[in-house]
């Protein structure tokens, strides 16, 4: 087994290789680390840059402060400087690093000085190291400089050594992730020498602080820190190298730390100590806080303290986790075993002698059960204030009053009841009754009521039922004992009862939350469309968080507001930028995050199974969300993401189906058109070639018939082509009918004449009402419409006569064409105006082209008229197409 393990270790560690692969895609971060200002970091950086530039490397200066030092400024000569962003800040113009300019320029290497710098308020990121992270994420190498005192984990050490509290801090993780750390070293005496020569720039206001800072002792201590940090890193790199290359080496056994924190002042120190310990051991570490399972989640203040601790720990490179359970020690040990932790770090509070006598501290309890785990105790500083969170949350007056009244009510009632019973029977154990009162009070009023009721009951019992009556003195000694036993039993029983009540309440709250979530997911499961899902999500979020909520989804790569609650919520440019950022990077952005914190909203990405589907913005108020709200928020967001993902898939499927449908339609259309063109073409070709090659062997009659078929088929084809062109004009929207005065009778006559020419022998009857008003329109189009209608009537109308009528109907002129053919089933009456719709076989065996009526409708509507079909028209047979045009108000007689 041990042999197996060793063989395993000799393979390159896959995680180490993966980390390497990820690094290959990112830009490299090089940090020039110094012990103090003035050691020459900028100088070193620029000298190196000049050498690379001379070798032809694309390196630019994003931002360098020369502080007016000549030798540094001289180094900038010949290097490309990026323009700076000018920002108005508290009435002054500041020149800041322009992140977007750097991203747009995309050099191979960009130099951005002063890693610990804080950006002015309206910047995308509050801290420069975040700007730099974005640059490396975009694949740009970055060189930057950092003084050791700005490192987060050393903040307390630095403050201790120098007495100066550093406000601008850089999380250790930034330095840890840097690909290269170059130490720029200068001995403290030399540095003080340079300072005296005025070669170190210091703002005037800071000169006094500087005097304190630049002492030999301080500088030596800082130099020590810087050297150690660099050495640690070199060590880490060595281990990494050994792992990546599967070299058996003396690397540290894999240590893993679990750090327990609570909402007390000591915990911050515990985190910092643990961070130093972890980096010394080169061990991953996890910070945990334990919440009691059956208590309502603690006060907001408590939670905020824990959240702040977690943020600090994350910046220092830790994982964080909330765990829930009743048995603190058991839960911590369970986690430690699951995570294969080797050491546990806990803080030890100073406790009173009495407390030490009766209870065990967490540390003691852990050490008893730890079984092989190392335990680190972190003690509080001497004289540190014991700022423990109050064990009892401050109770509101109203609650206290109601508890007291409840207790009083129960005790009074019990006393009266006792007296009443005493009148009839002699009760030896009246105290049982009072126990009932305490339990009653505890169930209704909670722990406080139980406690108050226990006290009152003791007093009332003593006063009313123990001899001598109506005094608080007690005659018999055993009664004294009994009274104390009663008090103890009452308090304990009351405590239990109220605890049960509390648990029931917590369970109820959780059940409600669960039910809400369940309802939500059930409703969500019923939605198939994106818009339904987003509206459901925003209204649910608003209801459970009581904050403004905005949900943005991506459509064709553009992020747009899909739903918001309240619906009139408006997003400003900053908000939209933050949303876009959150979408692109799949990370939270906006208020309370490291990106665009000026936004009023915090945007969280909605990550579905097939990638990001949108972002959700939650308006942030002064109070952060508590843990419960946070939990339901992430649950709702997860559900929403899945629902949106599903909706998107469903919509894509529908679109796909529609596309397929469209393709099938186009295919049918193409085959229909080709058939309609081919048949006349075949006939013409066949007839022509037949005539040319065999004409002399044919009878004159046959020759004549072939010629006639050529003529007819040519006419058929030209009508079809004309129809196609008309349809194209209607479809393309280029149809511009004239608005002339049109005499309906004239147009009807010309269309009928045209029809008779190609279908001689068909009876066409016309009936035009006398004094018919003119209509406004295009006589050519109207004639074409009538011809198409007559053509249809000829084809489908059997051998019965065709009727064309025109008459006035109110303000309209009606024109109708009626045939007496088979008619059209009611279901098809609307569809006959569709393009390429043909009654008959779909393969185009019907004689028509399927365009006639569709063109008729297009033309009629373009002229401002309407058209519809009626069937049966007469005697249960036939079809009537009716057109309706507004009358112009003038008849032809009045014009004449």
């Amino acid at each position, binding site marked *: 087994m041990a042999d197996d393990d060793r063989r395993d270790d000799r393979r390159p560690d896959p995680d180490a290789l993966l980390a390497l692969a990820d690094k290959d895609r990112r830009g490299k971060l090089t940090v020039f680390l110094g012990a103090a200002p003035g050691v020459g970091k900028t100088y070193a950086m620029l000298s190196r840059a000049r050498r690379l530039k001379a070798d032809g490397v694309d390196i630019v200066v994003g931002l360098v402060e020369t502080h007016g030092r000549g030798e540094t400024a001289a180094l900038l000569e010949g290097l490309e400087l990026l323009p700076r962003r000018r920002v108005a800040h508290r009435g002054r113009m500041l020149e800041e690093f322009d992140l977007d300019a750097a991203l747009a320029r995309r050099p191979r290497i960009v130099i951005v000085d002063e890693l610990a710098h804080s950006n002015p308020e309206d910047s995308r990121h509050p801290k420069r190291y975040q700007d730099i992270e974005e640059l490396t994420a975009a694949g740009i190498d970055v060189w930057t400089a950092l003084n050791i005192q700005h490192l987060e984990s050393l903040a307390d050490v630095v403050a201790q050594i120098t007495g100066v509290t550093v406000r601008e801090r850089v999380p250790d993780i930034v330095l840890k992730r840097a690909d290269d750390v170059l130490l720029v070293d200068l001995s403290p005496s030399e540095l003080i020498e340079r300072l005296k020569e005025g070669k170190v720039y210091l703002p005037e206001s800071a000169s006094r602080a500087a005097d304190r800072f630049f002492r030999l002792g301080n500088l030596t201590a800082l130099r020590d820190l810087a050297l150690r940090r660099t050495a640690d890193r070199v060590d880490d790199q060595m281990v990494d190298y050994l792992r990546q290359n599967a070299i058996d080496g003396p690397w540290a056994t894999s240590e893993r730390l679990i750090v327990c924190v609570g909402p007390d002042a000591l915990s911050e120190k515990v985190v910092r100590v643990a961070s130093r310990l972890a980096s010394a051991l080169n061990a991953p570490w996890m910070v945990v806080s334990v919440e009691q399972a059956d208590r309502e989640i603690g006060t907001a203040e408590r939670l905020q303290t824990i959240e702040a601790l977690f943020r600090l720990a994350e910046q220092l490179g830790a994982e964080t986790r909330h765990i829930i359970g009743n048995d603190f020690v058991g839960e911590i040990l369970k986690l430690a075993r699951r995570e294969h932790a080797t050491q546990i770090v806990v803080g030890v509070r100073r406790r009173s002698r009495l407390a030490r006598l009766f209870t065990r501290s967490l540390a003691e309890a852990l050490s008893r059960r730890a079984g092989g785990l190392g335990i680190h105790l972190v003690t509080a500083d001497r004289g540190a204030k014991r700022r423990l969170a109050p064990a009892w949350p401050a109770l509101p007056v109203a609650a206290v009053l109601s508890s007291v009244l409840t207790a009083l009510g129960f005790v009074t009632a019990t006393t009266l009841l006792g007296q009443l019973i005493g009148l009839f029977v002699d009760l030896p154990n009246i105290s049982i009754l009072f126990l009932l009162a305490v339990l009653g009070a505890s169930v209704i009023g909670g722990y406080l009521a139980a406690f108050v009721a226990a006290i009152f009951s003791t007093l009332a019992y003593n006063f009313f039922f123990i001899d001598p009556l109506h005094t608080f003195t007690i005659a018999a000694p055993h009664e004294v004992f009994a009274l104390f036993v009663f008090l103890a039993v009452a308090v304990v029983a009351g405590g239990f009862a109220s605890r049960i009540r509390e648990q029931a309440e917590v369970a109820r709250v959780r059940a409600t939350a669960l039910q809400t979530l369940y309802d939500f997911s059930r409703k969500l499961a019923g939605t198939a469309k994106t818009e339904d899902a987003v509206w459901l999500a925003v209204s649910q979020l608003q209801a459970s968080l009581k904050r403004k909520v905005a949900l943005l989804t991506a459509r064709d790569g553009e992020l747009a507001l899909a739903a918001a609650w309240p619906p009139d919520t408006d997003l400003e440019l900053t908000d939209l930028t933050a949303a876009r950022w959150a979408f692109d990077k799949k990370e939270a952005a906006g208020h309370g995050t490291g990106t665009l914190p000026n936004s009023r909203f915090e945007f969280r990405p909605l990550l579905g199974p097939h990638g990001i589907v949108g972002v959700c913005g939650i308006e942030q108020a002064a109070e952060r969300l508590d843990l419960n709200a946070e939990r339901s928020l992430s649950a709702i967001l997860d559900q929403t993401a899945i629902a949106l993902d599903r909706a998107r898939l469903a919509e894509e499927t529908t679109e796909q189906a529609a596309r397929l449908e469209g393709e099938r339609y186009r295919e049918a259309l*193409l*085959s229909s058109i*080709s*058939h309609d063109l*081919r*048949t*006349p*073409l*075949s*006939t*013409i*070709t*066949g*007839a022509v*070639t*037949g005539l040319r*090659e*065999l*004409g002399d*062997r*044919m*009878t004159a009659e*046959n*020759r004549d*018939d*072939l010629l006639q*078929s050529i003529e007819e*088929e040519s006419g058929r084809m030209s009508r079809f082509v004309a129809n196609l062109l008309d349809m194209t004009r209607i479809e393309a929207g280029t149809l511009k009918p004239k608005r002339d005065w049109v005499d309906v009778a004239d147009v009807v006559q010309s269309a009928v004449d045209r029809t008779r020419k190609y279908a001689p022998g068909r009876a066409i009857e016309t009936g035009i009402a006398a004094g018919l008003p003119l209509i406004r329109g295009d006589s050519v189009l109207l004639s074409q419409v009538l011809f198409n209608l007559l053509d249809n009537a000829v084809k489908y109308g059997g051998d019965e006569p065709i009727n064309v009528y025109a008459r006035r109907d109110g303000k309209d002129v009606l024109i109708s064409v009626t045939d007496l053919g088979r008619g059209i089933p009611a279901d098809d009456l609307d569809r006959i105006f569709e393009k390429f719709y043909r009654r008959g*076989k779909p*393969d185009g*065996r019907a004689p028509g082209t399927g365009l006639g009526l569709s063109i008729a409708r297009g033309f009629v509507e373009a002229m401002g008229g309407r058209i519809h079909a009626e069937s049966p028209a007469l005697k249960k047979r036939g079809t009537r197409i009716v057109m309706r045009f507004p009358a112009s108000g003038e008849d032809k007689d009045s014009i004449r």
Partner: protein
Amino acid sequence: MNQSRILVVDDEPQIQRFLKPSLTAAGYEVVEAATGAEALKAVATRAPDLVILDLGLPDMDGKEVIASLRGWSDIPVIILSARDREAEKIAALDLGADDYVEKPFGIGELTARIRTALRHRGRSEAIPTAMTVDDLTIDPVRRLVSRGGEPVHLTPKEYDLLLLLARHAGRVVTHKTLLTTIWGPAHGDDLHYLRVFIGQLRQKIERDPTQPRIVRTEPGVGYRMTEPA
């Protein structure tokens, strides 16, 4: 002269209208049918020598007509088809149709196909004596191929291919027929074999392999060997 009787199956009256006088003038007797059922009945009762069949019929698919016809008759069938109905046309040829004419077509083209089809009718598929196309001579008895008097060396597969095409000279032979006859039923879809072997064959027998005159390509359908003059 023994007049050949031709059955024209088409439901478009216009097509019948020009086919009948033209074919009559070309010396054939024309019988008309507008549906598949009519066509089958006409073949049985009127004993035509050849069928001209439109693939799009109102009552049944042209392919069905061929399939049921081939159950009891080997009468030559020429298909009238359209370019956009390629798959149907190939299926019909594989089902046993003898040739096809694409619409729109000239009467000359149709009568040439009719003549070829009628010539092959009732004749055994073997070539009894040597045949000559262009300057190529094929002698199936001695298994010899020569061009302009010079012997041409063909591999067995190339020879089989050439002979199969020669037996159907003047008529189209589909890819599938070529592949399954020469390579076996499992290779019906291995079109690349054909492309390679036809290419090699043309290198050896054609005067200008880039402009073949003996083995012609029928795009998407198969190959057709030019009929001996």
